């Protein structure tokens, strides 16, 4: 599987955020998107996720399911956690697993991997920011999708949870997945391509 983009441009509110961006990521590879605030790291991920229309250029996926769009084969982990405080931790994950077409049997394992198994019956509103983030990440584990689009995945996570996420990302890559991640710091993944936005391309 190979996800590639050629000459992407993004115009938001009449302003050119970026132009002429190209990249190519294959199964087992990671693309780290870096750059100052406001250079369009999030916008680039949202373009790939189909949440922003492409102004110019194109994105193509080779080796994916031809019946599905790229967005339908991707997980998007944005700044918000997409959780409902009134529902329990388990109910939140069960909903997204059901909605995204995963198997209900994966839920327990996903909660365990996120370290939230003991909290399954608590309302999600009781969780700390880091715990909410981990619950959001558990969604990526409960439902298999080859493409992970992660927007600052390490933010709000403590050192232990960051390490755990790095491990999960390694597993995903080993299973033939690919990752696009916007990041400020390092992802802790050895061989990552870096796409630096905001500098002369």
């Amino acid at each position, binding site marked *: 599987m190979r996800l590639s983009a050629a000459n992407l441009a993004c115009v938001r509110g009449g302003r050119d955020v970026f132009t002429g961006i190209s990249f190519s990521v294959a199964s087992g590879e990671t693309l780290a998107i870096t750059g100052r605030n406001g250079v369009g790291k999030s916008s680039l991920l949202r373009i790939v996720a189909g949440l922003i229309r492409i102004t110019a250029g194109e994105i193509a996926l080779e080796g994916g399911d031809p019946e599905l769009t790229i967005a339908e084969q991707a997980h998007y982990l944005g700044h918000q956690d997409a959780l409902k405080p009134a529902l329990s931790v388990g109910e939140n994950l069960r909903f997204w697993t059901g909605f995204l077409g995963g198997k209900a049997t994966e839920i327990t394992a996903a909660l365990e*991997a996120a*370290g939230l198994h*003991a909290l399954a019956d608590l309302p999600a509103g009781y969780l700390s920011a880091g715990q909410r983030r981990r619950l959001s990440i558990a969604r990526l584990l409960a439902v298999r999708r080859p493409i992970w689009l992660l927007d600052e995945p390490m933010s709000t996570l403590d050192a232990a949870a960051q*390490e*755990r996420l*790095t*491990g999960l990302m*390694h597993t995903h890559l080993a299973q033939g997945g690919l990752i696009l991640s916007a990041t400020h710091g390092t992802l802790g993944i050895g061989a990552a391509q870096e796409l630096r936005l905001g500098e002369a391309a």
Partner: protein
Amino acid sequence: METINHLPFIVGSYAAALIIVGGLVAWIALDFRAQRRALADLELRGQTRRSAGPRQQRPMEEVKEKA
């Protein structure tokens, strides 16, 4: 003749009182049971959590070994 006419309303009133007061009592009793069960459940969990404290660390250690 008036007496027979009024009876349904009197019975209705007392039935309404029975339903509303009975409903209140049932709601309070069920709520009491639910809260007590939730507390007992939490206590049980609290004990297992304390004894399983070290086990929770394990997944992170595995990750460390891999990395």
